[in-house]
């Protein structure tokens, strides 16, 4: 559990650094998706602290969800800043939420084991 919290803390810092680097070269153009790209990994820290007992399936689903949502938010931020769009971007929240739901459903199962 401790190593997971440290890992997700590092990932959260990574996203904060990445968004600041991107914003530095963004000529004053901002995107809220970019600004809040660190949130999914920050939530993973809380999840890891709250649910110390988690089986591998729940863990993998939540990890996949956090990465999917973060990468999707970062990409949407890049598109917003460039003032462009692509319909494929909607796959990220779709996949991310399905994985998140799967992970959440799976957590109690692990607690009972």
């Amino acid at each position: 559990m401790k190593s997971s919290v440290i890992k997700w803390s590092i990932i959260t810092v990574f996203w904060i650094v990445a968004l600041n680097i991107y914003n530095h070269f963004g000529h004053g153009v901002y995107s809220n998706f970019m600004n809040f790209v660190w949130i999914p990994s920050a939530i993973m820290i809380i999840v890891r602290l709250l649910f110390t007992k988690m089986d591998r399936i729940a863990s993998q689903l939540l990890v996949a969800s956090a990465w999917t949502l973060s990468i999707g938010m970062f990409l949407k931020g890049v598109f917003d800043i460039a003032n462009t769009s692509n319909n494929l971007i909607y796959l990220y929240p779709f996949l991310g939420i399905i994985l998140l739901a799967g992970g959440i459903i799976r957590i109690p199962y692990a607690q009972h084991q």
Partner: protein
Amino acid sequence: MPKSKHRLKKILKFGPIYALTLLSLTGYTAADTFLVSHSIATVKASKTTSSTAATVATNATSTSTSYKDDNISITIKTETVNNTKVYVADIVVSDSSYLKSALAQSTYGTNITETTSDQAEDVDAIFAINGDYYGYRNDGYVIRNGTLYRSTAGDEDVLGIDSNGNMASYDPSEYTAQELIDKGIVQAYSFGPTLVENGKVVVSDSDEVGQSMSSNPRTAIGQVGENHYIAVVSDGRTSESEGLSLSELAQVMVDNGATYAYNLDGGGSSTMVLNGKVINNPVGGGAGNSTGSERAVSDILYIGYKEQGS
């Protein structure tokens, strides 16, 4: 193999497989948005050619900042506004059909680009500015020289230029692209916002393009009166020129007599060309945004005799 071990192996494989899928999806999405060209239509002969505009004047005189013949008069002056170099082109034409549009590589599609000066050269444009870079987005009406290319509404007001050369803004939630065609609109640009209406600035100090809240290079087109237009391009993002806010740009338009003005794509796209020469200092060269480097864009708005596709 025991059932539980087999299941565990499957679970262990999920991580790397999903990571690879996610990376592939991200790479494909980014490439599809920024790199891959999608050609949708080739520009055909215009539907707006008038018999007057077909005649090329022979007695043209030009300098580095002006052009004049029997039908077209263009004068460019340079102003300094808020530590920013601003280029104001005053354009008077005898027939509104000298005001035309061109698409990069004579093709409508996404990620199909050419620099403003190259596009201007392709159509023998006397004067040109960058357009709305329609190919960078999936929405916003695109009507060029009377042909409807895209009917998906965007969020911003649309600049509509009718067959008499008159400019006005249209709310895409009130008008479909076909309704604009039916109203006689021959050019529609989707970027915005509208800067000036009835001679008054209609953007506030806090209005910006998308999430942008800073000074930038800008491009705008406006109308002074019948067959009389103003095009403004400002430098920006350099130590010599900070750039303009939208309200400052609108004020430049009003100060130069515009009764109507509309903001086009700015930033690295902002380029003004006269007689084949780039007038401003574009910063569209990508890495480092080096001064003088033009960005390749989807489209231009130009003054000239030759029509694309003819």
